[in-house]
């Protein structure tokens, strides 16, 4: 057996060959990313941060599925360790050490155990959210490599050998080269693309403890606005889509998918991936609800959106921009950015907004309000309340941003409660009144960046005329725009959600609520407060200060399910099999709570619109007012 080359050299050589093959495969794939637009990437910083991003941020997401977390640690750790150790055995002192081979044996054995865990998710029956196709071969390849490696290393450790060795080595080679081959367009691509994506992530801020959720401003003077085809994305976005491991966590989290609307975030990302390469293997996961099969051209220059293209427009407009998919993605993919880029092209280059959204967006552009209502009517809800205009005084401690909800009769009740509370606490508060234009949130989420920017600039100019220390709003969508997106247009404000201010006032003793222990409540987190801004505690603390019996829904906090009211989804109104708010209220009903506490005008409208609802919908401010007034 030692006739032409010792096994202790062949075995490491296999790993080196695997590495070489993987490198070739990656290079072939990377050539495709190069069709994407340039993007500034802080490579050195990114690479330096890579271990931390992987071990902390990625692990944080992966660990939510304990099985998957264990599985991945074992199989990926084993694979990396075994392969590295074997590769190092090219050094003669190590190659000659039986103890070293024993260590390699252990590493391969761990990999083998991990491979079994991988296989157990797919055989005999595949978990529903996972994709089939090439992913079904993955455990086989892993097992072949791991078992072959284990046996080979063991024999080298024992000094045994003989007739079996070629077979064990062959097994390892078959598995190992297979895995390496799969790096281009198979499951193993996620490892390489994922690592590169972590280093070159387009939103590095999210690894640095701040919610990096603001949409990037679009240069409206650019020759091409938004993304029509894969080549319109920046190269690192294309890279990020390639890191998708088709785990399906996004589709489980997606409210539109749950409602049977034609959106599946995994499929959407996979359609972007498939767009890059006409020869990409067929998608093997759950389809877009409604059963539409992929069709249309593929290729970096192929149109992505259209009734006859890979992605139907209804898919694009079903997204509520709730970021649940982003929150769940272990590969840190930014699905919502992709959706908005695609929407921007549809809105700005093709004027192809969904039919029902055209009216509201046009009104927004022309009248500064999606309902085309007079701006002065925004304060109608407050008639009879003492709510001064800032114009009459020039300054105020708190500027109350009313938002679109002020026009809504139901939400007027919330705002009246809030104003009463602020008055009672002696807060110096004023409003812009007719000078307040919509923040443009709706236009921005629907891709009409031009309308958004015009509104943002107008509002920033208005706000510049007055002095105030903070903006308070009860609308998380307005809060997100003002706090996170207006800075790009020169507006830098301290923006506080009303629940946070109310908590402050309670803690300062300016509001003294009685307890309402008879009421049972479950709090529904608004996406734009929890996921976009990371604020989940203040509303709960206010509810706890009232002494309510508070219970949590199965999905809460940053992992809460959307009400269906964001991202222009209500105006796009893409039909589904169910309604998102119905699903959410059913989840609320499982808690048995008599009240669903809300903190957002969209959530209020969506959840209160549910027929046969058993629970009352009450804003946190309304409950607090009740508690405060109970003490009179």
């Amino acid at each position, binding site marked *: 057996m030692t006739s032409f080359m010792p096994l202790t050299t062949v075995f490491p050589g296999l790993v080196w060959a695997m590495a070489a093959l993987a490198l070739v495969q990656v290079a072939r794939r990377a050539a495709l990313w190069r069709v994407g637009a340039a993007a500034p990437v802080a490579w050195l910083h990114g690479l330096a941060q890579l271990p931390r991003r992987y071990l902390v941020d990625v692990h944080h997401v992966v660990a939510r599925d304990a099985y998957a977390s264990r599985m991945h640690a074992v199989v990926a750790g084993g694979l990396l360790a075994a392969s590295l150790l074997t590769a190092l055995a090219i050094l003669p002192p190590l190659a000659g050490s039986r103890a070293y081979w024993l260590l390699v044996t252990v590493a391969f054995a761990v990999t083998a155990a991990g491979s079994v865990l991988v296989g157990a998710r797919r055989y005999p029956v595949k978990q529903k959210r996972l994709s089939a196709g090439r992913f079904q071969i993955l455990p086989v390849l892993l097992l072949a490599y791991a078992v072959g490696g284990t046996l080979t290393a063991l024999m080298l450790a024992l000094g045994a050998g003989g007739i079996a060795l070629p077979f064990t080595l062959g097994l390892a080679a078959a598995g190992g080269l297979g895995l390496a081959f799969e790096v281009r367009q198979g499951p193993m691509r996620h490892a390489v693309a994922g690592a590169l994506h972590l280093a070159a992530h387009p939103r590095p801020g999210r690894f640095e403890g701040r919610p990096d959720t603001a949409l990037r401003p679009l240069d409206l003077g650019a020759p091409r606005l938004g993304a029509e085809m894969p080549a319109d994305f920046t190269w690192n976005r294309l890279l990020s889509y390639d890191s998708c491991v088709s785990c399906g966590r996004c589709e489980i989290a997606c409210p539109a998918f749950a409602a049977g609307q034609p959106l599946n975030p995994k499929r959407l990302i996979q359609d972007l991936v498939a767009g890059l390469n006409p020869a990409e293997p067929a998608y093997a996961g759950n389809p877009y609800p409604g059963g539409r099969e992929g069709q249309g051209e593929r290729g970096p220059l192929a149109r992505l959106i259209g009734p006859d293209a890979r992605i139907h427009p209804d898919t694009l407009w079903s997204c509520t921009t709730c970021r649940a998919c982003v929150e769940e993605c272990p590969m840190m993919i930014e699905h919502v950015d992709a959706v908005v880029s695609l929407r921007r092209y549809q809105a700005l280059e093709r004027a192809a907004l969904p039919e029902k959204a055209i009216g509201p967006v046009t009104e927004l552009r022309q009248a500064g309000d999606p309902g085309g209502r007079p701006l002065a*009517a925004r304060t*109608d*809800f407050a*008639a*009879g309340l003492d709510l001064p205009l800032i114009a009459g005084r020039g300054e105020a401690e708190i500027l109350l941003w009313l938002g679109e909800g002020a*026009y809504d*009769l*139901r939400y*007027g009740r919330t705002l009246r409660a809030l104003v009463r509370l602020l008055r009672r606490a002696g807060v110096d508060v004023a409003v812009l009144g007719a000078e307040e234009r919509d923040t443009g949130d709706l236009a921005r989420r629907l891709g009409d960046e031009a309308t958004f920017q015009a509104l943002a600039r107008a509002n920033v100019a208005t706000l510049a005329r007055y002095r105030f220390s903070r903006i308070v709003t009860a609308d998380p969508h307005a809060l997100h725009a003002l706090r996170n997106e207006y800075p790009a247009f020169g507006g830098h404000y301290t923006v506080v959600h009303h629940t946070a201010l109310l908590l402050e006032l309670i803690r300062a003793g300016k509001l003294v609520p009685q307890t309402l222990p008879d009421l049972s409540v479950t709090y529904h987190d608004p996406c734009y407060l929890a996921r976009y801004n990371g604020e989940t505690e203040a509303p709960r603390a206010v509810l706890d200060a009232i002494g309510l019996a508070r219970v949590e829904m199965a999905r809460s906090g940053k992992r809460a399910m959307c009400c269906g009211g964001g991202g222009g989804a209500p105006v796009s109104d893409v039909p589904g099999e169910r309604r998102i708010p119905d699903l959410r209220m059913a989840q609320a009903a499982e808690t048995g709570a008599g009240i669903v506490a809300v903190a957002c005008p969209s959530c209020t409208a969506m959840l209160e619109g549910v027929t046969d609802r058993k629970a009352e919908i009450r804003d946190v401010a309304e409950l607090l007012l009740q508690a405060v007034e109970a003490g009179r």
Partner: protein
Amino acid sequence: MIANADALLKPLTIKGLTIRNRVMSTSHAPGYGRDGKPQERYQLYHAEKAKGGIGLTMFGGSSSVAPDSPAAPWNQISVADDSVIPYFRQFADRVHAHGGKLMIQLTHMGRRTKWDTEHWLPTISPSPRREPASRTVPKEMEEEDIARVVKSFAEAARRCREGGLDGCEVSAAHGHLIDQFWSPSVNQRTDKYGGSLENRMRFGIEVLEAMRAAAGDDYIIGIRMSGDEMIADGLSQEDCLTIATEYARRGLVDFLNVLGGQARDHIAHAISLPNMSFPVAPFLFLPSAIKREVDIPVFHAQRVTDLATAARAVAEGHVDMVAMTRAHIADPHLVKKLSEGRADDIRQCVGAGYCIDRIYVGGDALCIQNAATGREATMPHEIRKADLRRRVVVIGAGPGGLEAARVCAERGHAVVLFEKSGQAGGQIGLAAKAGWREAMSGIPRWLVAQATKLGVDLRLNTEATEAAVLAEKPDVVIVATGGTPFRGHAKGAEQHAVTTAEVLAGAVEPTGSVLLYDEMGQHNAASVAELLAKRGCLVEIATHDRMVAEEVGTTNQPIHLRELYKLGVVMTPNMELIEIYPEGNRFVAALRNTMTDAEEERVVDRIVVDHGTLPVDRLYRALKADSVNHGQTDQDAMLRGEPQPFDLSTGYALYRIGDAVAGRNIHAAIYDALRLCKDL
């Protein structure tokens, strides 16, 4: 949320005064004035509406500006001297505290009042023509009278402003002095105040100009006027349009409060205050027509009982504000309930006219279905929770029993409500079967909905027995078993008479000729007479009273009479039924003229009687002995608004309410229930 609710909840700004929504209550005379002043009861009644979210509440219907228009007849308000100002201030503060706005109506009633009530001054009018409604013959006004009254109006306007009221209106509707000048049916003068419409408008112009001068141009002054007097020699719609546009053009008024008709006699009065026989908003077209011609806000009241109609009236641009005066008497919190998304909780006015009918016979305005209205000092519109949860059994789901169940449930008690029949509502269910009285069914409909929502265990088709009641281990038992119709004392009545209730229930279906004998003077007999006549019977209605339906109030009796005349029903007052006997398959009724004692006979196919009801009290008597209070309500405690002083640790307390005590009416049953249960 109802359609167009946003139109209704939009503020309205008049001369810098922002009214928070488009719902108001017009000035009316609830009879709550004391010594010519709006004192606590009056103020609390309006403050409750402000608390309930109303935009503008106007009080003091026909508040008088001069002694020869006395405030006494309807316990109204006199603005004829400065002593009223402190009351205005207190009143305004009470309403403003809840975010509402407050205005008053000022008037001189001219001939439309009594000379023999307060100051014994003759009534005055442009011409000495008697008004049928007030039955006075006025003195023809001299120019000095005109100047004096103009000055009185001006002084009164100043007092309103000084009293902190947000504005005032002058009444030029229902045949008051200003519209007596306008209307050719009254004004037959030949001087500069009579003749052409221009001349007839002069007095009103002088009044308003003087008020403006006294109260300031920035003070809100409006006018209440008819959009069409709807009488042959009165103001036509065109005349009213001319007056409205001319007064608005001259800047004399800041709003027009438009209604239809006038009120010079019984039927005109009933039409101008439409009851449940009218469609909703029957005269909305009149303010709508005026609104098209003027650029000041237009208000309107007349049977707008539901918010959907109100919202439509504003959203479609017919009016700027909708007055829901009687609707607020039924539920002063209706705007709040609308804006809180609880429109289903609104106790909707059914148009029974009980409130207004009482004031025309010198009573105070009370709501047939809401016993708290006008009693805000003692009766709650919002029931407070009790400290202790009791087990309460109520027997009988008529209005009294339903109200008792509702109030007890609001108190937090566990309530079981037994009802023998398959339908809640008691005798109201019968009343609602009679022609235009169908809307009465709204009373139990709301009560049932509230009771159900509050978790009352309503057991229909379940007769309460002593055992069934005790099986509930009650702390409190409330017997509201109502009454059973009584056939009267006439000889042979027990065997041969049928009751109005039996006719309405369908137990008997009379045909041919019918003698309907009425001892009650209420709606019952009149409406059954209408029903039978419509079914083709030849009907004579005889009554002990001086007139048919004598106990029915002034907005309802004329409608009954109109229908009875139209249907050819023979009306025979001053008769007593003394005997009934059969003759063949017909009956003979012997009637005695109460004035002459002369006896007459009628041979008819059916004799129907209405003698009211006698209590159904079998169960009460069965439960009485074992109860801790022997079935007695401690009246002193109840009248003081204190809990009943019985120890429930040893057994149950037993109470009896409504017709189960003595046959009275719906309000009595509901008030019995509310005032007992609010403290249980």
